[in-house]
């Protein structure tokens, strides 16, 4: 049985901490670091591809907007009508519609905006901007 003196001396000895050995120069660290290098390379390559694709798309969309700003603005605000309302199409609508009201509703509810060339305005648009006192 250890005596109290022994235990005290043991405790004193344990205050001396053995020196820590040098870092383990593990031979398997090379494959592991090589693995992480390969993984890092793949991630970098994927990131580079994504950036390149994003940049290309951005350039393309920018070029489209620059080359046709009017159509871009129009398409952003409202859909382009399929065709303008003419007498012939109105007659066709009236003939095909179940009732006169339905035909008029169809003509009224569908946008009849015709895209104009850049710098031109429709007469209705000009008139609508004037303040008329009644």
């Amino acid at each position, binding site marked *: 049985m250890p005596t109290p003196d022994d235990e005290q001396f043991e405790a004193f000895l344990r205050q*001396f901490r*053995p020196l820590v050995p040098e870092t383990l120069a593990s031979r398997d660290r090379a494959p592991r670091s090589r693995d992480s290098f390969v993984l890092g390379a793949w991630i970098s390559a994927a990131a580079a591809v994504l950036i390149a694709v994003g940049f290309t798309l951005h350039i393309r969309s920018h070029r489209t907007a620059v080359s046709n700003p009017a159509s871009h603005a129009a398409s952003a605000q409202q859909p382009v009508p399929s065709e303008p309302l003419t007498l012939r199409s109105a007659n066709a609508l009236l003939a095909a519609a179940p009732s006169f009201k339905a035909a008029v509703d169809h003509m009224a509810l569908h946008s009849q905006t015709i895209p104009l060339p850049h710098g031109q305005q429709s007469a209705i648009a000009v008139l609508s901007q004037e303040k008329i006192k009644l």
Partner: protein
Amino acid sequence: MNQTDGDDEIELLYRQHGAALLLFARAMINDRSRAQDAVHQVFLKLIENGRLSRAVDKKAYLFACVRNAVLNEGKLAHRHRPLDPDTAWFSPPDRDYAVEQSLRRALLALPDEQRQVIVLHVWGELTFSQIGDLLGINLNTAASRYRYALAKVRDSMCAQENTRANSR
């Protein structure tokens, strides 16, 4: 357990017990670089072979591996190298390297079997049963060697301290 888990476990064991294992190796051969080589050799083999998972008592197994590494390489031939006062074994409390040297001298003055037992028990924190298994001796023999070693170290350190005090 996959290879990475095994490596992580070995790395953890190295951090936990590396210092005590190094001290144990130094207690056997009194040469820091050779002792460190022996410890590193053990861990590198464990990483390569992955045998540690089969060990029931991993700490005791590590001490046994270090002991075998030292013995197998015939490094015991170098154990009576002159004491190098510059190579500390311990980080002493209050940075008192005079006491550290005194402890080191006391340990080196012990017979090998007693020195191994005291290092394994105090700094390796192995039980006498584990030490008995490791060194191939009876539990009571291990405890007996320990008591003798402890008394000798205490006496030696007291004597050195008295000598220092008288010389001041």
